[in-house]
């Protein structure tokens, strides 16, 4: 039996090529995940307990960060999607200079996030910000971008949309360039206006790309940390404290590793549920289209 086992092992199998990746993934992803779960189910002293979970679910600031993250996700993902689609359709017009514009439009995506945050924070500043000065002078308004709890999250999402839309634009552009011109020629012959072409031809045909990019956008958006941390530190009045900031503030800055692990475990569960629902809903939508 042992000899047979050895012989079976000596045969070349595809699965052997996955072993190095499995080892790396296990040590860098699976082990930390399991350790995280273990920490969340134990107190600081190592005693098994669900006290962290009961404390988390009673914490109003945890629910606040979930609500803020939900608002953030809706704003930034919608904004990214719309701006990315508009830009990709404009670039796809193939007018003179579109290659140059495409390169220029990639600059925000290539700029380091911390530099982006620093500059935007200065631009938004109520006293010496150029945006503040320009818009208020032009429109006679008195906007304080980052000082109002009700609207600070909106202005932060502008930064995020500015940074990320060009990446989405590239993805959608690759899909648009895969659509044959014959289809549009046929539409023109039939007299279909541009909006009919957009909603009946273009969007359905690039739906698989939109679906994938949207999922990446959602996950990236809800994992966002740098923008609120650098620009508003979660304020004013914790109105921009996203879930990742909450986890950082409690788990790392507050040295409450077990409690932070609990918050991140619950967050992972939420993200997984979101991903499953998303895939299910979009699967159905894709079937309906085709």
């Amino acid at each position, binding site marked *: 039996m042992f000899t047979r086992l050895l012989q079976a092992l000596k045969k070349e199998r595809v699965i052997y090529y996955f072993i190095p990746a499995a080892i790396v993934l296990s040590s860098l992803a699976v082990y930390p995940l399991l350790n995280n779960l273990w920490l969340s189910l134990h107190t600081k002293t190592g005693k098994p307990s669900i006290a962290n979970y009961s404390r988390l679910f009673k914490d109003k600031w945890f629910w606040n960060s979930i609500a803020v993250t939900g608002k953030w996700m809706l704003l930034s993902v919608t904004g990214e999607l719309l701006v990315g689609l508009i830009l990709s359709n404009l670039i796809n017009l193939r007018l003179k200079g579109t290659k140059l514009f495409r390169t220029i439009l990639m600059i925000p995506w290539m700029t380091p996030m911390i530099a982006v945050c620093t500059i935007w924070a200065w631009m938004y500043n109520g006293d010496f910000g150029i945006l503040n000065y320009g818009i208020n002078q032009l429109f006679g308004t008195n906007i*304080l971008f980052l000082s109002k709890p009700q609207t600070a999250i909106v202005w932060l999402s502008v930064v995020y949309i500015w940074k990320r839309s060009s990446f989405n634009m590239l993805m959608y552009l690759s899909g648009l360039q895969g659509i044959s011109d014959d289809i549009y020629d046929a539409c023109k012959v039939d007299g279909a206006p541009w909006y009919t072409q957009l909603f009946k031809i273009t969007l359905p045909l690039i739906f698989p790309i939109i679906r994938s990019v949207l999922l990446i956008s959602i996950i990236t958006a809800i994992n966002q940390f740098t923008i609120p941390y650098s620009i508003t*530190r979660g304020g004013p009045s914790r109105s921009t404290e996203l879930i990742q900031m909450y986890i950082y*503030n409690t788990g790392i800055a507050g040295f409450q590793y077990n409690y932070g692990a609990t918050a991140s475990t619950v967050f992972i569960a939420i993200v997984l549920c979101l991903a499953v629902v998303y895939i299910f809903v979009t699967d159905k939508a894709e079937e309906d289209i085709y």
Partner: protein
Amino acid sequence: MRLIQKVMLLLLCLAMTISLSCQTVLAEKQLDIKGEIVVWYAGASESRVELYQWAKEKIEAEYPGTTVTLEVIPMAELASRQMTACQSNMGPDVMSQPIAATNGFMKLGLLEPVNELMQRLDRNLLEEFNPDFFELMREGDTLYGVPQSRTALALVYNKAMFEEAGLTEPPKNWNEVQEYAKQLTKKDNEGNTVVYGLGLPGTSGSHIWYRIIPEIWGAGGDICNSEMTQATLDSEATKKALEYYKSFYENGTAPRSMVENDQTATSQMFASGAVAMTIENVTWIRNNVVRENLFDVGVALYPGMNGTNVAGLGGWNACIPSSAKNKEGAAVFIDLITSKEGMEQQLLMPALTEVLEAGDWTDDFYGPYSKMLAEYSRDFPAFENAAAAQTVIMNMVQSILTDSADISSAIASANVEIQELLDQQNVE
């Protein structure tokens, strides 16, 4: 044996005994520090970098076979890196840490007592330093760190703006600060404010903490009782302090961007001439205004409700983790950086009493800071989760500034959260 020979023999034995005793004394004084001494610190301050480099070179010259490894950890992650390393028994030999962090490390048993080590180097810490500096790092007579620097905030102001407004002396209480702020605030022809009278931070937990808690103390209140079992934020004193803090934002004598600005941004506005007065520490003002010769800076005692406020102590401690591999080496390094020679290397402000009471530290610029440190300073309550406590206070202040909550409900809500933090640390 002849008499002379006996006497010679006796003298020789005596000499050998004395020599051996000296050797023993020296051996007790000198610590065995061969090997590596690993030092973790935030290299944010130029003078600290120079000081540590000086100590490294001195030790490596005097103790052949010893290497000192200086590792700079970015300020933002210093405390968390040190905590993680110490809890994993992989800490350095010397940790330079903000004083707010030391108490937490001590309570978790992560620090080595320094009494015996420093005594072997002929140091008497309680005599050489202000004993109050050890409040948060001692348990009875056991000390867990050595003060490296201490700071206390003071009022800084633009002397030229004061002269222009006809103000001859700095303000000494709340009423005067409010009055001065109005006089110093200037608008242009279109009604836009070009100079604000007073700059205060509206974001960053620690920056607000250092400026609102002294106001609460000055008004006769506190964040909790001395045993740290009961939150006492919900008081008339807190209400008055918050009304005072908000008044500048409301009447336009503090920057309209106050809610977005931490103290660094506020101080930058002070340095650029957009703010006439602010509450700032000696290091920032010296490095960014005085050394750059921007303008003449006046320094005054921190004005409180009815007189000088007691400011919260800031600064740095030098500590030895209990997991340190070279504790003797760590002690020698700390001895050097906290010696008179080390302290004289422009550390702001030197914690050693002998240096603080001498020369430069009593002039017009440093004098008020020294006086604040010597007579008007105390430690903040030692919250185990200091970051969370500071966030509670920041949130309370921001709620009031943005009118998200009225003062009473903001205070009541913050009081509940502070009580929760106290309950958690008392249970543990």
